[in-house]
């Protein structure tokens, strides 16, 4: 579904990504872990088109998308959230939900039904007329997550989706994620919350200093000596 080949990116003298390779298959939930500054967010930015890679290519459903713009990648079905929340803060929750659907020229009925269903799924229906900036951080993260689903994304890349969550809310997020995965959605998740990522991932990729240290079964990666040394301590 999504394939990253020899992806490299540097900023000045810093090598943010170095020959990164991995593949995501449909309906997988890939967890990406790594210490701060290891290149996880850069990887997501490069896959979605915010950064141009210095080298390598990105393939989505057998199409080379390396040089197509961010908005076109989104329209193809690659959704994402951001480490630093990027909601349309002065717009209402409802308006935030409609914007991606409008770009896909969905009918009013379809977009409203979809938005209502997703809001219901994360228990935000009662806040639909509230400005996004008035929501708690956890609610904003949930909104950003379901907003990405309004693009009918086949794959969604989530950058630290549970950061700032109240512990109760983490379960809401996990339940929603697993429900959407059951419906056929694929996810790539960057997360520091190890118990949460271990619970949902079908595969784990550990990154350090811009390189893939190890990838595979979550339990194996989690207990690998190199990964423990680099990240888990």
């Amino acid at each position: 579904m999504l394939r990253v080949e020899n992806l490299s990116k540097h900023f000045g003298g810093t090598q943010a990504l170095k020959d990164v390779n991995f593949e995501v298959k449909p309906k997988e939930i890939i967890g990406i872990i790594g210490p701060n500054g290891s290149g996880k967010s850069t990887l997501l930015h490069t896959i979605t088109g915010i950064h141009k890679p210095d080298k390598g290519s990105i393939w989505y459903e057998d199409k080379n998308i390396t040089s197509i713009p961010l908005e076109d990648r989104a329209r193809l079905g690659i959704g994402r959230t951001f480490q630093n929340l990027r909601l349309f803060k002065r717009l209402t929750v409802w308006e935030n939900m409609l914007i991606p659907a409008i770009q896909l020229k969905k009918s009013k009925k379809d977009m409203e039904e979809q938005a209502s269903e997703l809001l219901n799924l994360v228990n935000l229906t009662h806040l639909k007329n509230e400005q996004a900036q008035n929501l708690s951080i956890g609610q904003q993260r949930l909104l950003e997550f379901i907003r990405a689903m309004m693009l009918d994304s086949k794959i969604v890349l989530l950058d630290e989706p549970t950061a700032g969550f109240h512990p109760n809310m983490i379960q809401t997020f996990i339940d929603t994620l697993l429900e959407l995965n059951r419906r056929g959605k694929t996810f790539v998740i960057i997360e520091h919350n190890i118990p949460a990522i271990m619970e949902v991932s079908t595969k784990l990729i550990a990154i350090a200093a811009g390189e893939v240290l190890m990838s595979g079964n979550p339990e194996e990666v989690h207990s690998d000596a190199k990964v423990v040394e680099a990240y888990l301590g």
Partner: protein
Amino acid sequence: MEQLEKRILAVLLVVALFLPLFVDDYALHIVILACFFIMMASSWNLLAGYSGQVSFAHMALASSGAYTSGLISVHLGIHPVLSILVGAVVAGLVGLFLGVLTLRMKDSYLALTTIAFAEIFRLVISLEYKVTNGKVGLSVPGLFGDITSKLPYYYTAIGLVVLMVFFGIYRLVYSNFGLTVRSIREDEIAASAMGVKVVRHKIIVFTISSAMAGVAGGFLAHYNQLVSPEMTTITQMGMVISMAVIGGLGTFIGPIIGGLSLEIIAEYVKEFGNYHLMIFGLILILVLRFSPQGIAGLITKFHNRKKKKVSTSASTEKEVQK
């Protein structure tokens, strides 16, 4: 649009309908000038308030519409109604050209480039005598002929033009297109990540607001029966920005309140010459300090507070009755 904004608009419309019955010609003249500034501030607000693009070329674009309309009505003998429309199209095209060139730039780069464009435009029309008659300005035919005897006609005409511009802005802002544009104002990267074609939307808004400025400029030219480089000065542009910001950026009624109140204040303080700009500056600082959302924001705040008070006292009363 909020209910409160609708109510204020309705009141203003009723006042505007009956105004000529109660005021003298000079006051009507001031209101006509205010209508020009309201159109300018509203169309600039569409650009800056709703899509987040700060341009300093808006008066230059109005001027391009005014000169186009003036020149073709003088040289081709076309009626001003038609020439104003042609002027609007030309202003829109100039806006489109400028937009394509500049709208990939951000913030201060866009501002500086549009200032440069406005200054180049002003210098060209000031120094060119054969076509635009330089600093003296170009005499153009009036929309209805003599101003003094036909003032009510001009008032009615600008009233209709203002309503059309408002209708256009309303339809645009409260459509799916408008919602998309507001998302760009909030966060361009997030908008792109949601599939929004950011540059295309910005260019469309720039073109539409330029055409609206062109209509306003064309009307003013055929009202004053003169179009001069004075329209394009940075001072005039500052007036338009002040009106939109003081009134309330990103609100529908803000530029109307700002345009009307500042034009009226300008009349009272004009005897101080250029010092009146200091007064505008002072008002701007005070508004930005105490109500960054402008007068419209202040009105909404008071209205919401009052509404909250009423609902609280109503619920207390109910509890007491229980």
